């Protein structure tokens, strides 16, 4: 056996090429999209709607989001539920940096999207969380209804399924 080769044995190229890998990507994406673990993170009233989305009536565990984690090390998605102020921005950045790849971000509501009602004449509010971390899905509303957040989460799942899997 030739040990200098990284893959022992013989490689037989598949006809048409790479179908196995493409299917594997689909399986990985399907698995990832259906077990997104959100980080427990809420800075204002959007967090109340987020809790409602998690609770019995809207029950986001139907779509695989029930395992909310209190540590960024175990979370896949951070839902920015609320206003980000200048003092909170470095904390949000650190939480995002501590999350393991692949990681996703949902900006929930007007404050996280653009500063919302605090866009004008405010000395303390970050005008959109995307000044601090990259955002995948934005949700309109002040605060958005639980249905809107569920729609955003399902949109994120579609986004994951339609992309190449990060490996």
């Amino acid at each position, binding site marked *: 056996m030739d040990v200098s080769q990284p893959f022992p044995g013989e490689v037989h190229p598949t006809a048409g090429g790479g179908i196995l890998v493409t299917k594997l990507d689909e399986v990985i994406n399907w698995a990832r999209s259906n077990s997104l673990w959100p980080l427990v993170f809420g800075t204002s009233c959007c967090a109340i709607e987020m809790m409602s989305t998690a609770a019995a009536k809207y029950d986001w565990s139907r779509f695989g989001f029930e395992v909310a984690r209190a540590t960024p090390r175990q979370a896949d998605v951070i839902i920015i539920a609320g206003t980000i102020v*200048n*003092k909170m921005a470095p904390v949000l950045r650190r939480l995002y940096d501590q999350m393991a790849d692949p990681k996703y971000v949902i900006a929930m509501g007007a404050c996280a999207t653009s500063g919302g009602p605090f*866009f*004008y*004449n*405010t*000395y*303390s509010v970050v*005008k959109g969380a995307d000044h601090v971390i990259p955002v995948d899905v934005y949700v309109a509303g002040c605060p958005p209804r639980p249905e809107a957040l569920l729609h955003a989460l399902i949109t994120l799942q579609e986004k994951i399924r339609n992309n190449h899997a990060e490996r």
Partner: protein
Amino acid sequence: MQKDELKIKLSELLPSAAFEEGAEWPTILIDPRVWTDLARHIRSGIGLDFDYLFCLTAVDWKTHFTVVYHLTSTVHRHTLVVKIRLDRERPEVPTVSDIWRTAEFHEREAYDLMGIVFTEHPDLRRLFMTDEWIGWPLRKDYEDPVNMIKL
């Protein structure tokens, strides 16, 4: 104690105090120089027992500031509002943190956001803003071209 009784008692104690009419609670307007003495008296000694300062805030009227104290008594269940008018150039008022302990943080907040100086406060530092922050963000004439988008 009823509103009228409270008014009579306060007028005896401080003849110079002016009462504001039409408010939910009896409201007196006083001078900052008499505040420490009045605070000590209404806290204990003369039977008013205002033992709970439940709100301390400041208002910017552009021409002057007003510091507003909301006091209540957990013994007699009566409430009093004290308003003190302060000069815009030198907004100074003596601290009441030694009389009502809760005032310590409330006064720090009013100092941090409005720039009201509470003289003889034990620890008058920034509370919400960072230590190196310059300016008083809740004043009407506050400008911050870096963080603020004016409308």
